[in-house]
């Protein structure tokens, strides 16, 4: 067995365990990557609590996460439920919904950079159909973050595919039995479908959170963290301190806080979900 898993074991030691431990060490040092690190104790961590940009990045990231992740999941689940029925053009709809998820990354950022342009972009043009004079989106500190949140809904299709796979795993015999007992659509959904797909929900919730805590591309390509730091995401802040200001020690402290936050969030969700998430046969093989 160890022969087979040795590539991962080595990779784990070299590319994960060693970096985690050294990043913990760096976080207690003053370090610019070129000169050797100098131990300064907890100074980086105390600085963080007095640093405005740190708090800005935390607020921006949490606001983004708490709106974008739940809405995106609801959309994905909604689309999946619609497309799980037999419906004309089902194959077309599935592909069309998934398509935007293939554009992710820089290409998507460039496209939406134009869509959100207040003068010539598509978004405000469409709003004008309804007589709405659209805001300046990425150019205004009040709306820039919301623009990025709206953009994130465009890729709900990738979650939809996972939900569809989950829905296919719900035994139709259960649903038929419930229908015989006179259960309506809503009760079937609440009492059978939802518990049966709860592992997919849990998986997506955790992965969605972790991804959203790490937003970088949009900030880097579309806004450079602005205007007025309104899209100063946590990882953008981290990248900036490490590779623009050459403060790798302080940046490592930021990295460790991120790591701990992710672990705490995951642990809380796992704990809470124990009561609700249903695995076939009680325990997974």
């Amino acid at each position: 067995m160890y022969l087979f898993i040795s590539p991962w074991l080595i990779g784990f030691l070299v590319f994960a365990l060693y970096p985690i431990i050294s990043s913990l060490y760096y976080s207690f040092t003053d370090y610019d990557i070129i000169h050797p690190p100098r131990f300064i104790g907890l100074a980086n961590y105390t600085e963080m609590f007095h640093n405005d940009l740190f708090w800005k990045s935390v607020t921006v990231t949490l606001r983004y996460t708490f709106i974008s992740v739940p809405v995106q999941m609801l959309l994905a689940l909604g689309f999946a439920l619609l497309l799980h029925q037999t419906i004309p053009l089902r194959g077309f709809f599935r592909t069309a919904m998934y398509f935007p998820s293939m554009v992710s990354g820089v290409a998507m950022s460039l496209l939406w950079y134009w869509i959100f342009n207040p003068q010539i972009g598509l978004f405000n043009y469409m709003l004008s159909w309804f007589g709405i004079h659209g805001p300046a989106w990425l150019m205004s500190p009040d709306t820039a973050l919301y623009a990025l949140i709206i953009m994130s809904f465009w890729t709900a299709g990738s979650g939809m595919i996972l939900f569809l796979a989950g829905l296919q795993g719900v035994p139709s015999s259960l649903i038929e039995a419930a229908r015989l007992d006179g259960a309506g659509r809503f009760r079937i959904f609440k009492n059978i479908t939802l518990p049966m797909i709860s592992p997919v929900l849990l998986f997506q919730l955790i992965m969605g959170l972790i991804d959203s805590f790490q937003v970088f591309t949009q900030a880097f390509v579309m806004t450079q963290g602005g205007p007025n730091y309104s899209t100063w995401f946590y990882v953008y802040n981290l990248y900036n301190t490490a590779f623009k200001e050459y403060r790798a020690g302080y940046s490592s402290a930021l990295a460790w806080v991120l790591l701990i936050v992710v672990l705490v969030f995951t642990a809380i969700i796992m704990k809470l979900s124990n009561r609700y998430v249903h695995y076939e046969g009680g325990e997974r093989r």
Partner: protein
Amino acid sequence: MSTVKATSPRVPTSHSRRKADPVKIASFITLLITTFLMLLPLFFMVSTSLKSKREMLKFPPTFLPESWAWSNYTEIFDTLQFGTLYKNSLIIAGLTVIGTLLSSALVAYGFARYRGRGNQLWFALLLSTMMLPYPAIMIPQFVLFSKMNWIDTFLPLVVPAFFGSAYNIFLLRQFFSTLPEELFDAGRIDGCGELKMWRTIALPLSAPALATVAIFAFIYSWNDLLTPVLYLSSSDKFTLPVGMASLTSSRFRIPPWHLLMVASVLAMVPIVTLFAVAQKQFVEGIVLTGIK
């Protein structure tokens, strides 16, 4: 509907409902509208990429180009050395796919076939690394690679793939676990070693799962921005996303809108092609590996 239920001895499933089901009509209309909204940006991406610089600045945007500016597609090769960017990205993504497939399939097989106590412990550790945010290990990795003189080479972007990636190992392990034990018993009687069984039994039966992993790995590498931004410094080594990101940078007073769209279209081409070729296996793979 109640009459259907009463007269038919079979249970009417949702598949055999009558046509004029109001829920289905509503669903269909909702789907039409949302799909229209989802595809509209893509439509404009393509149509805008063919508009002249001047037409781009018009408001409201025209649906179709007034005159088709095919020259945009050659212009981008001059402005951005698009050919080089494309080649670099393809090399990196190609090597990443090969590395991921080889290593992840090997490791996943190890995890699927042996179920000792040590194994479970390592597997739990593997799953936990899926939650490890890349930025948390980014700085020490950078220091490590710079000590090895790997900065401004493709090595930091490619080599880690040869050591397996947690998510893909997990997917393949789930798939390998579903292969019937009898197959391997037969192989053992024929005197196959484990490595040979991996190659001759497990891999050939796993085409959909392997295709899924290959696509995931390709898309991931193709779209990645942060790692190439960190490691590549000379412009002839840039990947496509790094080069494209420079289009919005301050070196242009007005963003070259038409080129942004051309770049987006061209960046999509390999992914769409891949998806079109492997779509069946891909969807099957997602369902079979059961990410649930």
